[in-house]
């Protein structure tokens, strides 16, 4: 029993442990086990969880996540449309979801609010809500999928982002549209340009035919049905067209940056 307990204690004498372990093995297996030399690696795993928690594991996971960004960008089809649904399929009530309570959601004065446009664009003017409302709008009923796993179907109405990018003379060869929001702690999120130009990616002003309520991101949300929910920023205050990866609220904490669906 003493020996067995020792297995679980970090810093155990590994040579001794191998000796003990091989004693209980059949003859042939013993010889191969020792000659194989695979034992030390296996023992490190037994002596605690430090292998899984170490920063080297974290570095490895980050690299794989970057690789997964590239894979997702590769399989992303700019012409593939997210499935649309009849109005009867809309989830009611549509869930409010954020890293804060609804009471703490930004309360924005629509009259004072301006949408700032920065970076690689010809026209850097700020837009009032009134001006944005005049742009042609389309409605779409699509599925919102949260990184947590749940999903809900909603109806969003607004201007296709690609039309707006064209209107302001954005350099669409740039890598990202980076959005900043009015949420507490300053929510922000980068959107890759190919997704920004997807026909269903939308500057959303209405939910269920009503002006976007506070819970869903008044006065403007970026609705991206080809991305997970956290890549659909609410309470948007500015957009920067840029070649730099500027990170994002959740992306910086470890959520996969592309997070395409």
């Amino acid at each position: 029993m003493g020996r067995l307990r020792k297995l679980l204690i970090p810093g155990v004498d590994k040579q001794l442990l191998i000796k003990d372990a091989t004693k209980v093995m059949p003859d042939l297996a013993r010889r191969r086990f020792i000659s194989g030399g695979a034992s030390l690696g296996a023992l490190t795993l037994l002596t605690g969880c430090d292998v899984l928690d170490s920063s080297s594991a974290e570095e490895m996971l980050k690299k794989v996540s970057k690789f997964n960004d590239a894979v997702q960008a590769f399989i992303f089809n700019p012409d593939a449309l997210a499935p649309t649904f009849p109005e009867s399929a809309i989830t009611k009530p549509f869930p409010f979801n954020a890293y804060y309570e609804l009471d703490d959601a930004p309360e924005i004065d629509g009259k004072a609010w301006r949408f700032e446009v920065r970076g690689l664009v010809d026209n850097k003017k700020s837009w009032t809500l009134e001006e944005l409302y005049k742009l042609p709008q389309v409605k779409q009923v699509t599925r919102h999928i949260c990184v947590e796993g749940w999903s809900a179907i909603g109806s969003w109405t607004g201007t296709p982002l690609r039309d707006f990018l064209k209107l302001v003379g954005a350099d669409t060869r740039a890598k990202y549209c980076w959005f900043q929001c009015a949420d507490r702690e300053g929510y922000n999120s980068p959107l890759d340009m190919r997704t920004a130009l997807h026909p269903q990616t939308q500057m959303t002003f209405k939910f269920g035919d009503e002006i976007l309520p506070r819970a869903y991101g008044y006065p403007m949300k970026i609705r991206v049905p080809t991305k997970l929910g956290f890549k659909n920023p609410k309470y948007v205050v500015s957009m920067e067209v840029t070649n730099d990866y500027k990170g994002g609220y959740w992306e910086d904490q470890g959520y996969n940056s592309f997070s395409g669906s």
Partner: protein
Amino acid sequence: MSSLAATGQPTAATAKVIQPAWVRVMHWINAVAMILMIMSGWQIYNASPLFQSLTFSRTITLGGWLGGALLWHFAAMWLLMINGLAYLIMGIATGRFTRKLLPISPRGVISDATAALTFKLSHNDLSKYNQVQKLLYAGIIVVGVVIVLSGLSIWKPVQLQYLTALFGGYDVARYVHFFCMAAIVAFLVVHVLLAILVPRSLRAMIIGR
């Protein structure tokens, strides 16, 4: 096809290779990948449980929080998918699947299961699977394929929307993914238990004979 209480020759059985090297290597890679996928999957499940009364203790999950678990899940998936695909190709190409897993008959399964439960099932020749083994091993391969496909349809419900539709939509695919996990965990419990009861089979999966 059943191998009921036959008195085999142990000398001949121990001399030949029971599990070829490729099977052993892929088996253990799969074991590691499966455990990583299951433990990180439980942590992901906890973020939005399908069943209100069922959540997994953090002591048996991997990743610490949703973001960490997702990183593990989407890293280990490559290990699982590439290894699994290579295993399927090898299994079909070498004829191992047809040779070792077929035929399976309901009568054979019942008679071998009865023999196993009354401890009358012979394990003298580990190179030949009994009918219960054949059914479980063939079955778990199918479950393995379905869990990967349902996982892909949850991961990419727009890009792979026809696959997602095949599962009955995004929400149904989540349940399919969950129940495949449950089947694999159930298989794992029985599998490990039987390997402990017949240690020679575990040895064969490590050193081949």
